[in-house]
């Protein structure tokens, strides 16, 4: 064997040794990775994650949850998160074992209005979301945002949500002002312009429901119906389904919307899973009383 060859073969031997050393940690990594992914795949949990609007706390949806649970037999447990401005998360409530469709509300210490705050809140939400995904290992979820909560969701889906292991199945925004307080679709706010520019990043298999409340023919007391309608420029054509629903009548004022019985029905119809045990539900009684309320 020539000197040339010997040197090359020593190098080859060393590199095979190097690969050999890598083998044990590689095997460890793949076992752990496969186990984690299998766990996530097996997960039957599909939480509904709520984001409240500005000036509202993590307790914003308490009444809605109570009403829903009354109807559906205390099925859904409620977990509330608050993200502080220093990215720290505090928890209250819990997810009961064997609850496959828990409700999770994510609120923010800084819950102020304005585009700059919405951008920050989207980032805080992504921190909370990552923590939730890691802890509960769900592979899909449903999203509900009231008022600015819908804007935070839009910002989150466009800028932070790029996971191939978790899908967002449905999004419902309730009275979300996609064009802030503008009453005309001709004037696009900076936020709407940004949302439209990045719309391609929104998952295309999403079903989206945008609900507008109206007290009169113009607005719900706070948010112009035109501003809610502006959401179509972001979602329509990008997502699988984009549905606009206008709710009028009793409790159609902006802040009442989360408690509005009609909206609760829409949530149940479009967002929650159908395969619930309807055994606990009083037969038709709820539906009848709804009708009476609406008239």
């Amino acid at each position, binding site marked *: 064997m*020539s000197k*040339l*060859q010997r*040197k*090359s*073969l020593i*190098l*080859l031997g060393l*590199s095979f040794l*190097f*690969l050999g050393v*890598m*083998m044990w*940690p*590689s*095997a*460890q*990594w*793949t*076992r752990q*990775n*496969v186990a984690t*992914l*299998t766990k996530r*795949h*097996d997960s039957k949990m599909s939480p509904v994650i709520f984001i409240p609007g500005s000036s509202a706390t993590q307790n914003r949806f308490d009444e809605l949850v109570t009403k829903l649970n009354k109807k559906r037999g205390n099925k859904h447990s409620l977990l509330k998160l608050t993200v502080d401005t220093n990215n720290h998360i505090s928890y209250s409530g819990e997810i009961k074992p064997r609850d496959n469709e828990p409700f999770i509300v994510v609120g923010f210490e800084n819950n102020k209005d304005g585009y700059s705050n919405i951008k920050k809140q989207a980032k805080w939400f992504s921190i909370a979301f990552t923590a939730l995904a890691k802890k509960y290992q769900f592979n899909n979820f449903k999203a509900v945002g009231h008022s600015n909560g819908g804007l935070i969701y839009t910002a989150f889906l466009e800028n932070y949500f790029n996971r191939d292991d978790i899908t967002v199945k449905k999004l419902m925004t309730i009275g979300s002002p996609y064009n802030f307080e503008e009453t005309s679709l001709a004037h696009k706010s900076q936020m709407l312009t940004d949302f439209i520019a990045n719309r391609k990043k929104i998952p295309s298999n999403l079903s989206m429901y945008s609900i507008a409340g109206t007290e009169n023919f113009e607005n719900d007391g706070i948010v112009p119906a035109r501003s809610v309608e502006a959401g179509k420029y972001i979602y329509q054509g990008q997502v699988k389904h984009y549905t606009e629903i206008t709710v009028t009548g009793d409790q159609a004022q902006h802040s009442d919307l989360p408690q509005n019985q009609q909206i609760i029905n829409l949530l149940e119809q479009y967002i929650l899973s159908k395969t619930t045990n309807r055994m606990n539900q009083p037969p038709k009684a709820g539906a009848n009383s709804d009708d009476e309320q609406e008239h």
Partner: protein
Amino acid sequence: MKVIVQSKLLLFGQWITRVQTNHPLYQIIQRSLTLLFPFVLIGSLSQLIQLTLFNRHSFIASIFHFSTWLTKHNYMQVPFNSLTSLTLGIVAAIAAFATARYTAKYYGRDEQLASITGLVAYLLLALRYTPNGELTFNANLLGMGALFFGLLVGYLVGLVFRWLGKAQQVANPNNGSIVGRSLDSLVPISLVVVTAILVGLLLNWLEISILPDQVILKLQNLKANQTSLIFSLGIGVLVTILTFFGLTSMPTLEQFGRDGFAATANLNYAFLHHTPWHVPYPFTLGTLYGPFGAIGGTGGTLALVIAIFLFSRQRDQHLIGRWSLMPVLFNFNSAVLTGLPVLGNGLYIIPFLLVPLVNMGIAALAIALNLMPAVVYNVPLGTPGLLQAFIGTNGNWMALVISLLNVFVGVLIYKPFIQLANRLQEGVDQDV
């Protein structure tokens, strides 16, 4: 029998050498590729460090659990990223430079001006016209995957100089002023630049890609074909041929089989049944080509490097093999492909195509005989070729054994051609 095969091989080798030495184009391309080697090597090493060490999803970061730490220290990969982009990432442009130079030199024209013109012309072709007027390039047209076009443009520029330029008067240094030289070449330079701009505009206007990558990626979307063994073997050979002629490169192929419905179905099956055994589509590109058909990169290059170490008597080949060994272990084979050179070299076309085909065949057979499960799980970025099957089957030892067997068979296939190269080289040395 063995003697007959050997003598046939020798005849083949001599024929190839005769054809190649007699053709000026071949000489020009060989020299250009050799000129590229240092940049490709540096780029490959930088890419190696970036993609196996400093990327958040990289092999080393994953298995030694410092991905989270890297997320916060993202800047570490930036210098390597830039270095790779400006060496390996502009290989096609350098190739245009080199080919224009050697072509002009061969025909006795002004090689310096020709080479600069070649570079400028190629950059003009790769220019992407944006509405806001920024200077941006089509990165795919500058990298390894467009090497063929770089060589072609350089050669055409050289030919323009041959026809329109004046012969260089080297013998008369007092007469030929620098300005005179430039004036002599003004016509070919203008013609080349104008043509390049027009073609570039046309490409931008039509929004078409002249690279075959897109066609291949479209092919894998054909649902019906994706799952059959014949399709997988066929595409495996097709991409190897394209690589051989500098028409595509590994990064495109890495995407191969990773997405597509068969890979998803396999993965879902494996997660659902808690096993990679008996997945619905065991013979896809993802299960065969990546982990078995391209150990060390396209053409099973790890086997080539080992065959050089074992059988080559040429110092240059050993040195190139040693420098390229590290990147090749991690499937970055651009350095050895340009250094030896393998690309466009008729001597190596048979084993270069045969090794992936045989390797994929062995793997398919092993899966069919239930010796090992199909490779379905994802592997980290920059996983060494030899370990891809092992990791992708959740640590199946038989998969590792099959990988090693594949390399061994690959070495056996490359062996006679390395020995042939030895003999041809020694023949040349004796003639000299």
